[in-house]
């Protein structure tokens, strides 16, 4: 399952970036962006259902494996078409392509287990549960939701 972001929780510490680099031999797939002074947000692969990168890839190196957009390094020729086909700019090429693999082989993605603010999770329901509880608090006490 993909990693979901609750950006209202992101504190911009870039721990996810470092964690990603740590488990991927120095080349990470997350970029934390700072938008003015109002927010920080990690940008990484959404594992799109209909993924443009898999359409552009002519060798089948990028392909869907269930919900995951998987990458077979042995098939990559480094043509860079995937990088150009990704609307979010989250496939990189450095001779060969690299992108988020959801930390295949680990119990949970390193960015999720590392994030000290609990902004990242693999649970789609979590973000909507939080939004509902914020709305409920606002209805009970007034103010923000």
């Amino acid at each position, binding site marked *: 399952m993909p990693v979901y972001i609750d950006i209202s929780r992101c504190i911009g510490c870039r721990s996810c970036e470092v964690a990603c680099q740590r488990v991927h031999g120095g080349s990470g797939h997350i970029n934390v962006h700072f938008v003015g002074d109002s*927010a920080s947000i990690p940008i990484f692969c959404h594992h799109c259902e209909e993924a443009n990168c898999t359409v552009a890839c002519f060798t089948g190196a990028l392909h869907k494996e269930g919900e995951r957009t998987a990458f077979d390094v042995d098939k990559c020729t480094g043509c*860079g078409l995937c990088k150009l086909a990704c609307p979010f700019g989250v496939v990189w090429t450095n001779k060969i392509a690299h992108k988020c693999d959801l930390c295949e082989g680990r119990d949970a993605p390193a960015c999720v287990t590392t994030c000290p603010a609990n902004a990242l999770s693999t649970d789609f329901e979590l973000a909507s549960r939080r939004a509902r509880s914020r709305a409920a608090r606002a209805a009970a006490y007034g103010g923000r939701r």
Partner: protein
Amino acid sequence: MIKVDVGLCLGCLSCSNVCPSQNITRTETGEMRSIHWKRCKEECDLCVEFCPAKALTLVPFDETVPEPDVSFELVACKICGSRYATEPMLKRIESALPANMQKDSEGLEWIRVCPACRRNIEAERATKQMVLGRSRKSP
């Protein structure tokens, strides 16, 4: 020896990446990408197999044929102006993706925007949504 159909070549560097004997060389300056195929005697066809455009074929060795060269002017990003791809590569993406995928919700033709600017746009959009949600007062 490799024969190149210059009209088909995308300038993607696949061939140069897979060549085991460094017979396909690349030079990239700020604005141009050039690829040069040396006359090779190998009986290997990795470059032919891994060309996304099927632009390469193997032909018998011939010393009199000049070594092929292709140059591409790199396309500048619509937003930041940095050079990020060759025109045939972008054209290939445009022909591979359905038309409704090629503009985002705000009508931006994102294929003509470099990956770094695409990430910035995504960050700005998500922030706008978050700030909107936070500032919305309860009824």
